[in-house]
């Protein structure tokens, strides 16, 4: 079993490069200025590997996976 996790953005580090939204459109959209809006829910298990890869791909190291709530996942 993998632990529940959720995505978080460090907006001080984020530059709006938009790679994350391209790599993980299921969980990351962009606001009107091109900065990521991440789902506030736990990452569904089927997307965890993609989420980890997206975190590694951020050129600003502005995206991370924090421990999630677990058991309360109401998203997909």
């Amino acid at each position, binding site marked *: 079993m993998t632990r529940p996790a959720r995505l978080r953005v*460090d907006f001080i580090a984020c530059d709006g490069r938009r790679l994350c939204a391209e790599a993980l459109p299921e969980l990351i959209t962009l606001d*009107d200025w091109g*900065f990521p*809006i991440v789902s506030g829910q736990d990452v569904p298990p089927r997307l965890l590997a993609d989420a980890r890869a997206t975190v590694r791909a951020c050129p600003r190291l502005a995206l991370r996976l924090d421990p999630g709530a677990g058991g309360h996942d109401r998203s997909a």
Partner: protein
Amino acid sequence: MTGTRLAGTRPRLLYPGTAGLIEHTTRYGPPPSGLGRPQREALIAEVDRAGLTGRGGAGFPTARKLAAVAAAHSPAVVVANGTEGEPASIKDRVLMARSPHLVLDGAVLAAELTGAGRAVIVVHRDVREIMDEAAADRARAGLDRVRLEVRTAAGGFVAGQASAVVRWVQRDVAAPTATPPRLAQRGLRGAPTLVQNVETLAHLALIARYGAAWFRSAGTPAEPGTMLVTVLGAVREPGVLEVGTGTPVGQLLELAGSASGPLQALLLGGYFGAWVDAAGASGRPFSSAGLADLGAGPGAGLVAALPAGVCGLAETARVVRYLAGESAGQCGPCRFGLPAIAEQVEQLADRRSADPWLLRRWLGQVDGRGGCAHPDGAVRLVRSALRTFCAELERHAAGRCSGGPARLLPVPSGSRR
């Protein structure tokens, strides 16, 4: 700075005039010092029983912060926050001008409680001299085992945010930093750091002397103690009050000489606070619990009275434009979103064509998406204006306005840098 009045009971923090060291010691007695470990733990427990919370706006329990920094494994630092970047608030400055030694007592005690050898007192430039003199008097008297260092705060609205104060002391840059790490774990030069508002420290200095039961004899059981409140706008005697927490809002206005005419709305908490209908709020206790369902709170202890015949949308537009300019510019949603929101609010205020749908979309896209709470505060203010001034919004949509443009809320002009 104008008068100070305390409702009902004797003042705790504020007396007329500036108290020098001798007057201060005569008034309050000497603070406890040279605390051993058991006494330190007992005093943190006493602060917990007192129910003291931060008076800078966030209202976090002080004992929990003290305990977190005290439990850290490396030497800690205390930062007393007297930045007071909120343009409408003067309560921290009035406190430091009247009772500088009470603030310094609190800073020294906080340092003893957390094992810090050093306390940095970051103060608004208006009171720098008073605080310097007070610190020098204590040094001459050999009063403290803790090193006190007074610094002038940076200007600007976000400069008072805890991590921005730490960064200012460390690097002369007054911009917030990312969390984690928490300041209690890694703050000033990597040391566990306790940042406390100066009023909170003054209360701490009194709890150390007189105990939790005394502290709780004012205020409400859930939110005990007294608090400083800046009252401004359409009242006859604007100034700083010391009142029990939970004093009815209408009574605050009366203590400030009463309203100078019919009131329309009140801005509560600060520029990150909320507008409320004046009649609806006047019977409410000025406390978190008493104001929560109005979408407001005591915040940094601010009440601004908006008279009838003044356009609340115009006041809000000026403040939001100011807040947009005060963004540290580090986070995209705040940097780009707040000016966009300010533009929309200005259009509403000027009866030009605005897009309420777009405004609400942007409020949602900015809320909660910064490294500090600056964007959230601006969003809260605008949302409260849309609620409180909805009749005015309808008039504006019809091309009318019920009031002239006033300049009730102070907004510093020019650049802060």
